[in-house]
């Protein structure tokens, strides 16, 4: 089963081999191997609790912050082992951005939320430069029109969907190479969803984007490759079109057609 994730086509940006994740006694990710190519959108789908978020958090080592979590196996970005002792997770996370499943804006102004990443990484030469970064990030996250007149107001005062887009803008502003998005559209209306999907499509010019979604249509619309997780296993991985039209595994088929929930 563990060779379903391997491809031999496009050059892989992220390669995972035999990844196991344990939360204390719970075995959450079971022997997952996958190659995620550059300049593509990869969708992770699967029933709730199957380990999509957990695997996503392995890629930027956010699982390090959970005391009980233990990650085994080998994950490489551009051929470099990110769990190597010499790797500083802080540096890794500047390279691998993340949008969390629950919107978590800082209790600061909208502007400061977006400007925080560029500030700590010294991406802006001066104030005007920073203003430009903030504006373009907010525009790309389809939030600019709604907030341009109240950039000084707290980001926590926005609606749930606006907060989600604010978090997307915040992640985009640091210009990462890989962007991990955990259900970025779960609280968005169809129009905002379409705008975020447009952003994702645009991002794949320069980045490798991994997106977790519960919407089959969304996976079909935005992604080039799809991975189906079930109970901690990577069941099937391949071209999005093929997964949705002719899944090889019966579990994939029943999930896609709505029989596993």
């Amino acid at each position, binding site marked *: 089963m563990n060779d379903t994730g391997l491809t031999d086509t496009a050059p892989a940006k992220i390669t995972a081999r035999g990844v196991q994740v344990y939360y204390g006694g719970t075995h959450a990710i079971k022997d997952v191997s996958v190659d995620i190519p550059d300049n593509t959108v990869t969708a992770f789908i699967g029933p709730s609790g199957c380990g999509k978020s957990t695997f996503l958090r392995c890629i*930027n080592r*956010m699982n390090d*912050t959970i*005391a009980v979590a233990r990650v085994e196996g080998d994950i490489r970005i551009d051929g470099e082992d990110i769990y190597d002792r010499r790797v500083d997770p*802080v*540096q890794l*996370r*500047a*390279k691998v*951005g*993340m949008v*969390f499943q*629950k919107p*978590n*804006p*800082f*209790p*600061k102004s909208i502007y400061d939320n977006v400007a*925080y*990443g560029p500030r*700590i*990484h010294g991406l802006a030469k001066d104030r005007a430069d920073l203003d430009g970064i903030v504006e373009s990030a907010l525009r790309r996250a389809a939030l600019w029109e709604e907030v341009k007149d109240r950039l000084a107001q*707290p980001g*926590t005062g926005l609606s749930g969907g606006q907060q989600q887009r604010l*978090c997307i803008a*915040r*992640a985009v502003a*640091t210009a990462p190479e890989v962007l991990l998005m955990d259900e970025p559209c779960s609280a968005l209306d169809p129009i905002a969803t379409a705008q975020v999907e447009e952003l994702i499509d645009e991002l794949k010019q320069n980045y490798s984007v991994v997106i977790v979604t519960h919407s089959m249509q969304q996976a079909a619309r935005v992604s080039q490759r799809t991975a189906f997780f079930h109970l901690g296993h990577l069941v099937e991985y391949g071209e999005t079109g093929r997964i949705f039209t002719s899944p090889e595994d019966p579990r994939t088929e029943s999930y896609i057609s709505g029989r596993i929930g």
Partner: protein
Amino acid sequence: MTDATRGNGRAGQGSLLVSDARTARRNAAERRFRIYGLLAVSIGIVALVVLLVSILANGASAFRQTTIRIDVPLDAARLDPSGTRDPAAMAGVTTFRYAPLLREGLAATIAAAGIEAEVDDRALDEMISDESVAQLRRHVLANPDLVGQTVPVEVLASGRIDGFFKGRVTYASAELDSNVTPEQLRLAEELRNAELLRTGFNWRFLTAPDGSDTRPEAAGLGVAILGSIYMMLIVLALALPIGVAASIYLEEFAPQNRWTDVIEVNISNLAAVPSIVFGILGLAIFINFMGLPQSAPIVGGLVLTLMTLPTIIIATRAALKAVPPSIRDAALGLGASKMQSVLHHVLPLAMPGILTGTIIGLAQALGETAPLLLIGMVAFVREYPDAPPDGFFDPATALPVQIYNWTQRADPAFVERAGGAIIVLLLFLLAMNLTAIFLRRRFERRW
């Protein structure tokens, strides 16, 4: 109705216009709870009011003091026998020589005002505070040129005369009192009618050092207030940074293992240790072992720091724990280091809680008496400590110790002083709490 609401497995049956039995019962329970709550709050407020009223009734008069204006002839022959006006030579003249001057001045002032006094010299002497004689001498030594002139001075009336105008001493009590006679009281009243004696705001109570057992009218809080302020500065400067750093380390960086559990339990225990134990510790370590001076604010401050640390650590850890983990994730996910995520996001959010804990700790420390008794801060100190940092090593007292000290003295006039000192202490606490509220507001407005 009951049939409709009992056991048919469906909520909310029947008319909405009639409240069913279950709802009525729930509402009654809620009403009862509100009454209990109101009762509890009322009891608290009544207790507070009784406390404040009794303290104010006892202590408010300490802020007023009776003084007599006397024209004192500074007789050159007696004060400066050498005639040189040299302060060094005049320093040889003791207060013993000044007392008659004041008395004579008072007698002359009385005569000039046309008041008939039926009191002898000794009685006149007794009406003036001994403190004033010493004060006059200091004044003259500082300004030797005054010798030979007649100068008007405002002197403290003795404690009994002062008490008469505050209602503590009456003609009836004076009959039985060996320290004051009804004649003296009558004279005092006439002096007041002639506007030579008046009762005004008592600045000396806030600025003067302590007075001896026989001079309650001269006793002030100056040294105690300075000592308390010095100790609070030391506690703030040490306990806040140490406590916050320790909490941040324990909460954000330390691995969660048996050792951190042990430390956590011990910090909680430390917070519950009786304060006198800290006093013994301070005596043993800071005075006997490290050789720091007794009665000094530095020792008091260090002991109170040890006492305050657990309070600050516990409050700070609770405040840090209350910051949602998603905020830390957000910062880390953007590539912030742990330190950045703590300093930029977690700490500002925890700040209101930290400030509250710090102020509570400081307030406790300000009112703490027992450990200070052990390190000798109860001494009778007449000299003001120097300005910090040198002053941290000079002898001083502290507000609560001064209160304790005054309540131990025989003269009932000290009861009033103690009450006044309690009011000052409460005002300090009020000021600290207002500062805390102000700071909390400021920090909260930022997000």
